[in-house]
């Protein structure tokens, strides 16, 4: 059942991606100042959104874990954070390439990029903490609290860095004014396949976690014999 969902999701994501690539490379009007590189935005931005969606899912599941003490929520929280980190890494590196072309430097202390980097460090700390705790219930409890702290911190980080950076002159992403609505549509359209892929990855990771739990249980049973 779950298998079929995963295949269905991946297939749908692939079809959508091909269609989106065709539209964004052939149909969409060019951005006057930047040339082709501008089209990175169609992956760069939805990747960030997907990452935050993952972190948000982890936040919700952490609260649910603390309320219900069911290790399944802990597993979802962990899987969503891992997948979120992969998307966040995609966002960061594509942002660097974009910055290299537009501003000539690999790293700008752009508020969004900096916030994402801090987020990445926060959640990398979450995974690091998980590795350091052996006992599963304790691990779930501690990392749920950390996940809640991290997620509450995210908006504060974002606004503080925004204010920090607006005090210094900053390069702008596109030449001021509103972005064309066809670009916006493309951003959202390309978000859908990324979400689907994230869901599939989370499901795979969850299945592995379940298999690990079963193996551990069988091993304990075998040793008890």
């Amino acid at each position, binding site marked *: 059942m779950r298998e079929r969902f995963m295949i269905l999701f991946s297939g749908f994501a692939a079809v959508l991606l091909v269609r989106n690539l065709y539209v964004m*490379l*052939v149909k969409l009007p*060019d*951005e006057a100042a*930047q*040339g*082709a*590189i*501008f*089209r*990175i935005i169609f*992956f*760069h931005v939805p*990747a960030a959104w997907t990452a935050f969606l993952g972190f948000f899912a982890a936040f919700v599941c952490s609260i649910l874990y603390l309320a219900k003490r069911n290790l399944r929520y802990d597993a979802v929280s962990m899987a969503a954070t*891992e*997948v979120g980190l*992969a*998307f966040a*890494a*995609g*966002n960061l*590196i*594509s942002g660097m*390439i*974009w910055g*290299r*072309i537009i501003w000539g430097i690999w790293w700008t202390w752009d508020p969004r990029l900096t916030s994402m980097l801090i987020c990445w460090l926060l959640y990398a700390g979450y995974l690091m903490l998980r590795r350091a705790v052996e006992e599963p219930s304790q691990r779930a409890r501690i990392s749920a609290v950390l996940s809640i702290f991290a997620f509450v911190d995210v908006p504060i980080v974002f606004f503080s860095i925004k204010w920090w950076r607006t005090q210094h002159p900053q390069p702008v992403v596109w030449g001021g004014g509103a972005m064309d609505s066809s670009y916006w549509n493309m951003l959202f359209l390309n978000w859908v396949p990324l979400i689907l*892929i994230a869901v599939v*990855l989370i499901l*795979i*990771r969850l299945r*592995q976690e379940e*298999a*690990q739990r079963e*193996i551990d249980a*069988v*091993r304990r049973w*075998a040793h008890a*014999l």
Partner: protein
Amino acid sequence: MDERNFTYMFYGFAVVWLCLIAYVVSLAAREKRLRQQLDGLKKLMEDRAK
């Protein structure tokens, strides 16, 4: 379309997917570890059965 920086756009696209692929590779490695643990268990059980 405007073809300035086309290669860099390609790199940008590729890099997002590379991050995801790297994660998938880590998933595959974990899958392999699970498989090994399972085989070890099976062997353990067979030894016990004898």
